[in-house]
């Protein structure tokens, strides 16, 4: 056998295979993946199930399944805490629920306005749950919902992003609200501007575990879209609370509160102090975006994609403080 000829052949096969992967089979792969599969859940405490999000940005291949999602099963009903980043993601979560319980899905909690947490909500409409959110969430959805849906549709394709679902039960700031799943109470707290202006957390009284939403990022670089100083205040309040364990919006399914808070406080303090110093010194925003908070780089995944944006966000606000 001629080795050279063989090499040519395999190279051709490889090349053609490579070309095919680029064009034709994309559809096939997409179709095969079109049918949602039950999401992989981890039971972090009895009756509390968490799906860990991918450490990626939204792509057509991942259906925006990048946020941590969860559900809590009580005696009489189920509560979903963040329904997912797309219709597909929400359907996967729903299948995972139905693989474990046939109890009614009574509540779907939307932890904040960001697309990776809320666009799965439409997958639960047939269950007729009460959709719950921060008192500011309806206005935030009015201002951003269409913008987010259009942006996400460009990535995932038309029809893949669910409708914007507006919560009907609202939680006011400083007025924690309790939900009952039958012998299992959930305390919902609407926070002041921090990660966003619509952050809502959920405490499961039975386990003492807090669903922190994106008030906590673990491992993945946090994205700042609310109020840097406000977020630091909320973190301090969480540090001083009696809660020991939390489900972060991104990162492992269950983390120690103290560790998660400490890492974020360290990053945000560096970000705040270095941004203030840059403004005082007259460092232009474009230089600040690529030079500040770099001591944090080794601590966070996707740092290069998010830190510059965070600097710009912090800079534009702190220059008017």
């Amino acid at each position, binding site marked *: 056998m001629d080795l050279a000829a063989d090499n040519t052949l395999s190279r051709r096969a490889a090349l053609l295979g490579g070309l095919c992967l680029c064009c034709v089979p994309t559809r096939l792969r997409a179709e095969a993946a079109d049918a949602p599969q039950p999401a992989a859940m981890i039971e972090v405490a009895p009756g509390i199930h968490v799906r860990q999000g991918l450490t990626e940005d939204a792509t057509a291949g991942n259906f925006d399944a990048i946020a941590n999602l969860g559900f809590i099963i009580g005696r009489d009903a189920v509560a979903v805490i963040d329904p997912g980043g797309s219709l597909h993601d929400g359907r996967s979560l729903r299948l995972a629920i139905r693989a474990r319980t046939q109890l009614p899905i009574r509540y779907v909690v939307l932890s904040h306005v960001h697309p990776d947490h809320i666009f799965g909500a439409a997958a639960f409409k047939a269950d007729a749950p009460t959709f719950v959110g921060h008192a500011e969430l309806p206005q935030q959805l009015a201002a951003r919902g269409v913008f987010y849906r259009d942006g996400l549709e460009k990535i995932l394709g038309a029809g893949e992003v669910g409708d914007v679902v507006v919560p009907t039960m609202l939680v006011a700031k400083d007025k924690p609200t309790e939900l009952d799943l039958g012998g299992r109470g959930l305390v919902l707290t609407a926070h002041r501007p921090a990660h966003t202006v619509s952050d809502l957390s959920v405490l499961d009284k039975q386990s003492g575990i807090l669903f922190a939403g994106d008030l906590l990022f673990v491992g993945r670089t946090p994205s700042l879209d609310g109020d840097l100083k406000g977020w630091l205040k909320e973190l301090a309040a969480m540090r001083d609370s009696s809660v020991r364990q939390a489900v972060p919006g991104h990162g492992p399914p269950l983390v120690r509160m103290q560790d998660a808070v400490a890492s974020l406080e360290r990053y945000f303090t560096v970000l705040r102090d270095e941004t203030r110093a840059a403004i005082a010194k007259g460092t232009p925003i474009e230089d600040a975006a690529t030079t500040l908070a770099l001591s944090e780089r080794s601590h966070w995944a996707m740092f290069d994609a998010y830190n510059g944006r965070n600097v710009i966000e912090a800079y534009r606000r702190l*220059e008017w403080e």
Partner: protein
Amino acid sequence: MRRLLMVALLMIAGVTCAMAEDEIAEREARWRSVATDIFGERAIEDGSALLKLKVPEQAMNAALVPISVELIGDRPITTVSVVIDNNPMPLAGRFKLGPAFVRDDIKMRVRVNEYTLIHAVAETDDGKLYAVSHYIKAAGGCSAPDARASADVLARMGKMQLRRERSSDLAQVPTRLLISHPNYSGMQQNASGDYTPARYLERVSVSVGGAKVFDMEGGISLSEDPSIAFSYAPKGNGEVEVKVQDSSAAQFLQHFDALK
């Protein structure tokens, strides 16, 4: 076999080139149409000997893209325009330069609504136009919701800051003017789901000791809380006056003491 492969690869490469050519032709056609709207039928020559345009390849935040135009060489320039070709209102800023303007970078923060060429155009004192351009990948900057609750934006609307560097060269004061203004594009939805009507900076005039630094014509392509950096030469009593008028005919006036 190898030849066949080569042919196949060349064909693929050919297709790619053709696509790129189409895209280049499209950008060129867009620029011609935008340039005609702004500058009429005047010829525009290559401006790389007069201008250097700095634009990020990819924006971190499409609603706040820092760009800079450096004025190089020594041919007298009377006007500098920044055009974002594919934005709904492409003219981001047109600076008519005055005697107190010092030839240096002009920096501004702009919105970019889709992948586009950005052009910087200089008019020289003989009335000729020269342009340079840079492509940027960014999208959604004009429709991105305003960053804060509208209540505080409106409360401090019209407030200004003048951040000046004390350099050793007393003839040149590097300055950044910050103007608190939502600069509503008309494409942003508000808390009731309606589109907030456009309300943007139409005119910004800066002078020092009675001598003009520049008059700028603005538009919706300026970011929220617009920021404009430039250098001026202290004239007269050195006091800086900034006059701003927005598209709702609101006027804002602020004086800043001479730099001591």
